[in-house]
């Protein structure tokens, strides 16, 4: 009797061990904008996904990557497909804010955690039952706008003009920037819009110059943001020009050339990783990403956008071991545990900053997540 019991006990133990051995793989669904208007952001993200760890805590990780063509409907469709067909444990994406906002309902309904790679603070604010499942890795626009306004005040800028994209990006920046600038008593003398595909911004630039601002902020992303700057220089504008972190890639420097000398912009520290002081904990994490990415894609190719995908993976690597103690991948328990673990992320150093999440803050970045950068000699230069 006694022997029989221990045999049955042994059987249970073996079964448990066996079950642990064949634990399901972790499925990570990724939807990003590798084509369409946001392709210049989505492509480095896609390249980064290829560099992500194949195992986390000894568990195999499958990355299922879909392209949403910068289209909101496709992003939602991809998310549904990832959850329903691929049974993913977590969704990473998408690249743009409109896409990410549209995906919130889907992941909340399926109770699957999501890590967005888009900038808008609306993705995680105001915190509610749906955003309970949503996290993000890029800095909020407000954080970046504060950095610009602070720099303007330090440089004695009294009047400023804004030229931005006629889309969600330009509008978002206008809202954040105008709010903060007015609170800090900087007068906004012009507010103009242009389209990504415009061949000429002469009208907007002439109107801006006529308003005689001390500084101009250009709210655009990628190489299209070079057009107003080139026109401003062409028309002899002498004041300070600010860009946003949306331009932080090598192509912008190539297209803008000497007209961009002396431009200021806020950016994630990864952009100037090598120039950070050794005492900065982010330097090591950021350089790790830059070295890995450039080894795979060539020198000078690393951009801040790909690093958002990298940071999303950092969050997972940190959270998955905790979640594995609570449940098996592929189960609702695991997804819930993963969400809780993500929310409990403390002092995690990643390429863009240090994450300290809380139930109210699903981003968790502080001042360390942004630096001011100046374009000098066709390169990014850290402003101390």
């Amino acid at each position, binding site marked *: 009797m006694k022997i029989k019991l221990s045999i049955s006990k042994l059987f249970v133990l073996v079964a448990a061990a066996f079950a642990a051995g064949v634990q399901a793989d972790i499925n990570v669904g990724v939807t990003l904008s590798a*084509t369409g*208007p946001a*392709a*210049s952001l*989505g*492509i480095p993200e896609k390249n980064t996904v290829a560099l992500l760890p194949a195992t986390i805590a000894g568990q195999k990780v499958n990355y299922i990557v879909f392209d949403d063509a910068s289209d909101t409907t496709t992003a939602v469709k991809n998310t549904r497909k990832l959850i329903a067909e691929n049974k993913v444990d977590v969704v990473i994406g998408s690249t743009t804010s409109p896409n990410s906002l549209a995906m919130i309902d889907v992941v909340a309904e399926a109770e699957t955690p999501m890590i967005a790679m888009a900038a808008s603070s609306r993705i995680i604010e105001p915190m509610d039952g749906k955003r309970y499942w949503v996290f993000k890795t890029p800095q909020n626009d407000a954080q970046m706008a504060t950095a610009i306004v602070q720099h303007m005040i330090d440089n004695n800028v009294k009047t400023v003009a804004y030229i931005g994209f*006629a889309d969600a990006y330009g509008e978002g920046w206008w809202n954040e920037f105008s709010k903060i600038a007015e609170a800090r008593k900087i007068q906004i003398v012009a507010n*103009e*819009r*242009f*389209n*990504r*595909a*415009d*061949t*000429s*911004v*002469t*009208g*907007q630039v*002439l*109107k801006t110059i*006529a308003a005689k601002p001390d500084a101009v902020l250009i709210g655009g992303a*990628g*190489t*299209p943001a*070079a*057009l107003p700057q080139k026109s401003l220089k*062409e028309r002899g504008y002498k004041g300070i020009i600010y860009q946003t972190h949306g331009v932080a*890639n090598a*192509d*912008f420097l*190539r*297209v803008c050339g000497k007209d961009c000398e002396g431009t200021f912009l806020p950016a994630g520290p990864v952009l100037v990783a090598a120039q950070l002081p050794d005492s900065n904990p982010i330097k090591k994490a950021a350089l790790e990403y830059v070295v890995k990415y450039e080894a795979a894609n060539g020198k000078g190719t690393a951009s801040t956008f790909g690093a958002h995908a990298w940071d999303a993976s950092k969050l997972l690597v940190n959270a998955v071991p905790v979640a594995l103690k609570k449940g098996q991948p592929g189960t609702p328990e695991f997804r819930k545990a993963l969400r809780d673990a993500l929310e409990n992320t403390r002092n995690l150093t990643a390429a863009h900053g240090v994450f300290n999440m809380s139930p109210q803050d699903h981003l968790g970045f502080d001042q360390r997540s942004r630096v001011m950068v100046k374009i000098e000699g066709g390169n990014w230069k850290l402003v101390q």
Partner: protein
Amino acid sequence: MDLQIALLLGQDGLSNGAIYALLALALVLVFAVTRVIFIPQGEFVAFGALTLASLQAGRLPGTIWLVLALGTVIALVDGSRALRGRQFRRIPWIVLVNCGIPLLLAGVLFAVSAASLPLPVQVLLALMLVVPLGPMIYRLAYQPVAEASVLVLLIVSVAVHVTLIGIGLLFFGAEGSRTPAFTDVSFELGDTLLQGQTILVVVASVVLIVALYFFFERTIYGKALRATAMNRTGARLMGISGTLAGMLSFTLAASIGAFSGILISPITTIYYDSGFLIGLKGFVGAIIGGLASYPVAAAGAILVGLLESYSSFWASAFKEVIVFTLIIPVLLWRSLKTRHVEEE
């Protein structure tokens, strides 16, 4: 707005309008001859500019692969047809034209480093790479359905447009390019600065328009195209091949598109998908001309350029709205003025 700003805006509007005018002419030409509403017209602008940019950057432009691939497919299609028709003597010719010439081009590109060539040679190379795409696309996409309704041809156009955009992203990447200016000359006019490149755009457009005029008035091919545009069946009865007319009009459209792209790429940054919006504004001009009248289309396109320039000053957020809303009164006016003829 003072006089100086008004002048600057006018100059800007004219130079953009000149490009729109070229595209409007190409659209009218293609529609008149083949009844195709040529949505991919803008893609040739982007391909022309980006091919030149990659030549200058010392990269092998992806366009050459497209030319090679399309040439091979055409050689296969035409070759198998010639085989079935037992016209063996045509086969070497088909292979030579469709595969040999692109291969020769590719050989030249591999042999010499294009970045070190003088600018005019680079421009010529870029044109030689992009212009063959016009007749090739006509052969593969439009010729098999040449007799179909305008709607079917329009659907084919949309498909070609979407395909070319995708191919453009693959070849040239998501980021844009800008080529160095052809000339750094600038003139002081009063207290405004007149840029040499802007003058070049306007002058080149005018020269091209005049050349087109003489082509249609004085050459046998031009007259053949006009005849086809006026009456397709009548022209065929007179021995003008509809296929030849189609090929010719697409070649012209592709040349005009690629040339426009090369003209504006020093003024603005061109992306793989910029062509569509530029083409669309040319299309507004062509609509003002009722897709039939060349001078009215050109004037309409200049109007679009000026309207765009001045509205970007007064209400930049609504610029596109203003430009495209222009179509509504024009359509109203045209439908009131002309008798409506049911198609087919």
